[in-house]
């Protein structure tokens, strides 16, 4: 299995060095070759299991509880300004 490491890294928002790309490509290919094993299993009539609890309809009432203070909210931010988090604008939406 060949994978386009640069494309995947971009999707994953990781910047990889060239040598990393090469290494990962090899490692990921071997893992993907291994997981191909699953193709042997006939799952045509099998429902997927995304969760194992069997729970459903777990909700909460529409009630408010106290929020963090602004100081707490910002306490781990490296860049802040006037009560806001601050970030460089280099992304486009």
């Amino acid at each position, binding site marked *: 299995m060949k994978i386009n490491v640069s494309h995947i890294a971009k999707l994953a928002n990781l910047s990889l060095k060239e040598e990393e790309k090469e290494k990962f490509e090899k490692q990921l290919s071997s893992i993907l070759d291994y997981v191909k094993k699953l193709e042997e299993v006939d799952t045509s009539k099998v429902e997927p299991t995304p969760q194992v609890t069997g729970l459903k309809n777990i909700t909460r*009432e529409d009630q408010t509880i106290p929020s963090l203070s602004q100081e707490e909210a910002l306490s781990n931010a490296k860049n802040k300004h006037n009560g806001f988090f*601050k970030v460089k604008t280099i992304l486009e939406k």
Partner: protein
Amino acid sequence: MNKTKYQPVIGLEVHVELKTKSKMFCGCSAQYFGKEPNTHVCPVCLGLPGALPVPNNKAMEWCVMIGLALNCKIPLVSKFDRKNYFYPDLPKGYQISQYDEPIARNGSLKLKIKNEKLKNNLEKTIRIRRVHLEEDTAKLIHQFGNQKSKIKNQKYEEFSLIDFNRSGVPLVEIVSEPDFESALEVVEYLKKLQQIVRYLDVSNADMEKGEMRLEPNISLREISNVKFQIINYKVEVKNINSFRFVEKAIDYELKRQEELLKREETPVQETRGWDENKQKTISQRSKEEAHDYRYFPEPDIPPVHWTGNQISNIKNQIEELPSEKLERFKKEYGLNDYDAEILTRDKTTADYFEEAVKIGAGHMIAPKQIANVVINKKIDISSTLPAHLITQIASSKQTATLSDEALEKIITQIVDENPKAVEDYKKGKSNALMFLVGQVIRKYPKKIDAGGLRERMEKMLQ
């Protein structure tokens, strides 16, 4: 240049913020407007490590309610999914949304489209593909930059400020089929949608406050080839954050595409943003960068299974919707389309009117007369009680009755003095009648009900 004619094909994604007390997946207050930044946040809506979402049941019910009001089917099974992408306003790097099992699907909304040429209203049905629930993102403020900083390949050393108060506010997304053929239809649809969610009392849907947002996707197809043509591009337009921009932005984009097509170029499939200053749409993201959202079922939230009973309970909570109310007003109060439409535009006015009608019945005042006063006199319903309004109408009626003879005299005088206006009116110029009414009011020493006077003069001049 070819001379092919094109027909717009427009689909809409509309986001409506619900006015629940708390956010979609945490207990922070959802009433964030105008609050100090980052004061309505907690580990969940800040996306702190280890925090987990628990859905708000009111938001889920309200989403079902919107679905029902839009004539949707409510599948008994629904679930949340993660939509993965990176942007600084999305704290977890994924938005909890719904992918293949939305809360509601396959609905429709009927519109009345004014046809300027034919001077009548055409009915048109817009099909609704799906209605689903998700969480809002944080608010980015481009404090030091400007809109330019969003343009591709321009790397500015500028900063954005982030306020997470809006992060996690419940958002309902309503996706239509590409059934719109003009900006006008889009505007009608938005008004209707806004009216419905306000009637349901689940959202304020104020576009200027960002409580209702739309993203049209716009293409053109050749009119001659409507049935067989495959449209191979679609342009999404963002940043239309006022009712005033909707028509302008869509019309601009339609014209832009038409010009390209006439030069035999295919418009690029992309996202464009409406720039109000420049009065045009500007490219934001082209196809090769199109996002791959890597949806998968949200493992932190168990699926939703409604019972038929729950759905009918929610259905029962839905009060009369605007279109039903309009029909009833016409039937029950003998109003014309125009008056009924104005009176049912918002629920408060409709309720006010009905309250006044109830009280008016005791004073022998007809609903039609009340409607006239409410509409023509632009009564401030927040400061005038219905009972007070009725007293006013009753007394003005009395004034007019008492001085009937005097009034008669003045009317005759005005009609005699203005033969030209009378003639104009008889030729169909309604302005002329208003002129005559105005003259009478000026001459008459006391206050007089203009609506009543107008009716009286109409009859007289027939």
